[in-house]
């Protein structure tokens, strides 16, 4: 039986698809640690004192800020964490009124959410970012090559980069106070300084129950939702609130983990190397065709 070119290419393509199909069916496996630490942030308790920012700065030995931490005027503008600020407090006026019929503020702490299946870890090509068993998304500067894929991958837009330092730039983000929480009884700086326990540190599973208990005990106060329970497959940092999360700067995010989509696409593309095979097959065919034509011309 003579194998035509078209037939051959078709067969290769079909084989590739067939090879990829079972891989697609084979569900992507979450690598989330089973019992990580977490923090529960209760937006109804936060008073916007910025002590967490101060503690974060001191614990991580970050440079002194331009504006002192007891200056609350910085809350007039919305801020984002950057290379020397791992956490910020933003103030929102979502429309709630206090007992004097004045708009009541809601304060939101922003920092790395320490996703259960972090997109940054999945995107990192050198393994500089890892999800640790204690819940922290840990950054190892020794392995980082500065590609900044993590910054593009993060659904919360958290990692920042030291653009000002061309020689030894680092990716900077909340460390979950890795060293502190690795010690017995250690808490992150922000959680230990918070005067009203708006940040509760503990095991994520317990905090989730705690959050639901708080909502259940006061359904009139809380919105029936724990942000971070399901967002992008769950995050170590959880939030409960008395206002809609979308009104106070939280993003609407899908429930499936980000790496679930990207890694499935990637693994199905490269299973049994069918896609490079197909690609080189096509290229080879094109070469063959064009080459023969030239031969004909010469003859």
């Amino acid at each position, binding site marked *: 039986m003579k194998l035509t070119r078209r037939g051959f290419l078709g067969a290769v393509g079909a084989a590739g698809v067939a090879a990829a199909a079972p891989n697609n069916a084979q569900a992507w496996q979450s690598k989330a640690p089973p019992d990580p630490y977490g923090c529960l942030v209760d937006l109804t308790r936060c008073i916007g004192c910025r002590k967490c920012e101060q503690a974060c700065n001191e614990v991580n030995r970050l440079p002194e800020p331009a504006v002192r931490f007891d200056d609350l005027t910085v809350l007039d503008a919305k801020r984002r964490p950057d290379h020397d600020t791992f956490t910020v407090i933003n103030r929102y006026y979502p429309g709630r009124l206090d007992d004097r019929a004045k708009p009541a503020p809601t304060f939101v702490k922003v920092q790395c959410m320490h996703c259960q299946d972090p997109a940054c870890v999945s995107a990192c090509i050198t393994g500089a970012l890892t999800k640790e068993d204690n819940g922290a998304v840990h950054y190892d500067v020794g392995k980082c090559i500065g590609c900044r894929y993590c910054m593009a991958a993060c659904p919360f837009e958290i990692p920042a980069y030291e653009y000002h330092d061309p020689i030894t730039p680092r990716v900077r983000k909340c460390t979950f106070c890795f060293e502190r929480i690795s010690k017995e009884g250690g808490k992150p700086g922000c959680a230990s300084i918070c005067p009203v326990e708006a940040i*509760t540190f503990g095991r994520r599973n317990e905090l989730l129950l705690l959050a*639901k208990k708080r909502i259940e005990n006061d359904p009139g106060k809380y919105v029936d939702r724990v942000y971070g329970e399901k967002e992008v497959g769950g995050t170590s940092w959880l939030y409960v609130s008395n206002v809609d999360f979308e009104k106070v700067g939280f993003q609407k995010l899908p429930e499936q983990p980000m790496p679930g989509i990207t890694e499935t696409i990637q693994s199905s593309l490269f299973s049994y190397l069918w896609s490079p095979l197909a690609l080189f097959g096509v290229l080879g065919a094109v070469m063959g065709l064009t080459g023969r034509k030239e031969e004909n011309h010469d003859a």
Partner: protein
Amino acid sequence: MRTNVIRVLATAVLMAVLGASAALAATPPPAGDAKPVEKSRKDLTPMPEGWTALRQEEAIKQAHKQYPFVEDVLMEDLPLRQQRLRNMGIGYKDIKQSYILLDSPYVDTYEKQYDPVRFMHSKHAASLDGDCAACHHYRPADPNAPETVSCRSCHQDTRTDANTERIGLKAAYHMQCMNCHEQMKKGPVNCVGCHTKRSVDHKELVRLPENPKPQEVTAECLRCHQEAGDDMLATAHWLWRGPSPYTTEHRKSVMSGKGTTTLNNF
């Protein structure tokens, strides 16, 4: 006519005085033999020797006393509890100490930045008209336990298990005090309203030569407190300006003040 004469005379006297003072100010300080003014850093109102705040030691001891943790509390409605406390005749006369020092290892969860609060127990109880239940919201489930227990009997470390969630002592203090102050529109709600800030010992930080010039002292202060200096330059103390009092021919054309060049502007 006479008033005019008086006015002119008064102006002349004023001018003379001003001129004299300007001349005085302009005279260079006597050089050579004159000794520099001796500076004294002595505290003019020293604390009497061995003085401590009233009952301070007792209060510190009291603050660090450990109480057995109350695991179970009797949950009851606030009005019922208030009624019961009133019926039992518990009120502010039962308070033994006039103030409590709110200090405990459970409060020091981060580096000490503030001094402990001196909580006026009797005063608060009296201003609440003896409504103890405003703060002593629950009682231990054990019937033999006293009716009101201290905050840190129930609030110690943070308990995160969902069945017995108990906020830590620091948060309990802060939330109880601040929420009530906010509700009542009375009492401080900022940090330094209740705490004194633990200030840094400036003896170690200030670096000055033996006999500093005033400018050197200012420069040394500004080394750390640049913002305070900048702020000062934006205040009325530095920027004030206004019409001068009546001068010749009833004119108020001269603007005096620190914001101009006419008064005391170095």
